[in-house]
Structures are given as structure tokens and as C-alpha cells.
């Protein structure tokens, strides 16, 4: 049983709420925010083991949020998610500071694997 704490950030509330619910069935403690500022508020108030951010957010962009989290919480691994298929010219490279870049629609098994790998990799770095 992992019980890792994950924060999901996406402005599409129905999508991110459903994803959080599915992760709960996979022994993650999942919460979500629908904007960058809301995510930062939650990070100040609670502890998370990994953050997953949609690249396209209204207002504060996914990349801006990634950079802000990287500066304030360097121990926290961040995965980015893009609506463009990864490997396409539009998707671009994994943003600097992100552990990985995943395509939408999100494959739940792949997400779980990547999050677990990211948490373990960052845990090893801390030692």
C-alpha cells in the first residue's frame, strides 16, 4: 500500500476530479487544484509527495507553476501532462525541472508507474 500523496493540477475539473478518484482506488491520497495559485495554496498548507500539472493552465501557465514549485519545493518531483501527443512537434521537449512529460489522454497505469518512479528517484536524491 503506497499512500503517497499526490496533487493534480488541471483546469478541467471533471477530468481532474475523476483522475483523483481513480488514484484513490490505487492507494494514492489524491487531491486536485484547478489553477496554479490554488495549487500553490494547497502546497503551503499540506505535504505532497508528487505533483502532476497540465501544461496548459489559464492565467499562470503549467510551466510557470513548475518553475515556482521548483524554486520553493526543490525536493518535490513534478510530472507535466500535455494535450499534444508527446513526440509531436507541438508537444515539445520535457520542460526543465520536470521529471517527465506525459501525453493526454492519461493512461492511469503509466501515471502510477511514473509517479512512483519519480517519488523513489527523488527519495534517493535526498539521501
Amino acid at each position: 500500500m503506497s499512500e503517497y500523496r499526490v496533487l493534480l493540477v488541471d483546469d478541467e475539473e471533471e477530468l481532474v476530479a475523476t483522475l483523483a478518484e481513480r488514484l484513490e482506488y490505487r492507494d494514492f491520497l489524491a487531491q486536485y487544484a484547478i489553477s496554479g495559485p490554488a495549487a500553490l495554496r494547497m502546497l503551503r498548507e499540506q505535504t505532497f509527495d508528487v505533483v502532476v500539472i497540465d501544461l496548459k493552465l489559464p492565467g499562470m501557465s503549467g510551466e510557470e507553476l513548475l518553475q515556482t514549485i521548483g524554486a520553493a519545493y526543490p525536493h518535490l518531483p513534478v510530472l507535466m501532462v500535455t494535450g499534444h501527443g508527446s513526440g509531436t512537434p507541438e508537444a515539445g521537449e520535457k520542460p526543465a525541472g520536470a521529471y517527465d512529460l506525459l501525453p493526454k489522454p492519461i493512461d492511469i497505469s503509466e501515471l502510477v508507474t511514473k509517479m512512483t518512479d519519480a517519488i523513489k528517484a527523488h527519495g534517493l536524491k535526498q539521501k
Partner: protein
Amino acid sequence: MTHELNNVLGTIEQVTGLIEDLAETDAIRDHGVAEKILSVVDRVGKQAERGAGLIKRLNSFAHLTDEGETTCNLAELLENIVALSERKARMGKATLVTAGLDREIIITASPLLVVQFVYGAIKRALAIADPTEPIRISLTRSEAGGEISIDVRCGQGVPEDKATDTTAACATRLGGRIEETDSDGLRTIKLVIPYK
């Protein structure tokens, strides 16, 4: 619009996955879980409806180039244009509020040209808008033709340049006009599209 559609399909995928997750639980016979499943199925239905609506708009937009000049309802065209603009508005934290779209104003024009004309003006409004106030788009009938007024409260440090060459060119080709006036920080962009 395709980004929105991708989100809709992604949500449907996750929600159907959730149904599978629920179906695998030992609590499936529990009354509470059965109700939960019904509520989830309802959510799928709503997303599918949303997807169908988006596809309809996308098709309508894709077919704009099929005919040159044709008879069309300016209110319907404007409704589609505003729908096209909404995500862009949301990304800039702006909101669009409309009025007068329930009336029928028939014009004879190239729908593609009208879309380019009006969308160009809305983009201009989004570029200068103070995001704390909504951008109001209203449609009325006048002697000269259909009139679209875009009222936008200007944000700080707004550039002074007016309508772009493209928008002005569209106005000329449509036989219409574009006017911009200022009153106490409220910019009004008025577009007039003749009936014929």
C-alpha cells in the same frame, strides 16, 4: 476547440475507467456503489453531449469556406464566433458576455469573411481588456445593417494602435465598417455588416 474536445474525450475515458474500477470492487452489491455508478454514467452522458456540441461547432466552422457569399443569420454566426473565442478569453482570465443573440438578422455575405472580421475585433478587445471586467458583445439591427458592439474596459498600459489592417480589410470587402471610440476608459469597437 480541439483542446476542449481533447479534454472532453479524456474525461470520458477516465470516467469509463472509473466505472471499471468500481465494477471490480467487492462492494458492487452495496446500494451506495450502485447509485455511484449511475451518477458516473450520467457524467459520461453529459461529457458526450458536450463533445457532440463541440464537434457540431467545429464542423460548422470547417464548412465556412464551402460557399462564397451566402444568406446567413448573423446572430448564429456571432454565437459560433464567441464560442470559438471563449477558451482564448479564459486563458487570459477574461469573460465574454453576450446580448441580442436570440434575434434573427439575415445578411448576405461570405461567412468566412464575417468570422475573420468579428474574430479579429474580439481578439483586439481581449488584447486590451482589463480582465477584472467582462467584455460585452451585443448585436442589434440598424438601417445600415447588423451592428456588433464590443464594449471593453481597457487595462493598464494599453497600446494606442487601433484596428489591425486585416480587420479593416475585412470591413472593406464586406462593404461594412469598424469604429472605435473611447469614453472614460471604456473602449467600444463597433462593427457594421450590411444586410447585402
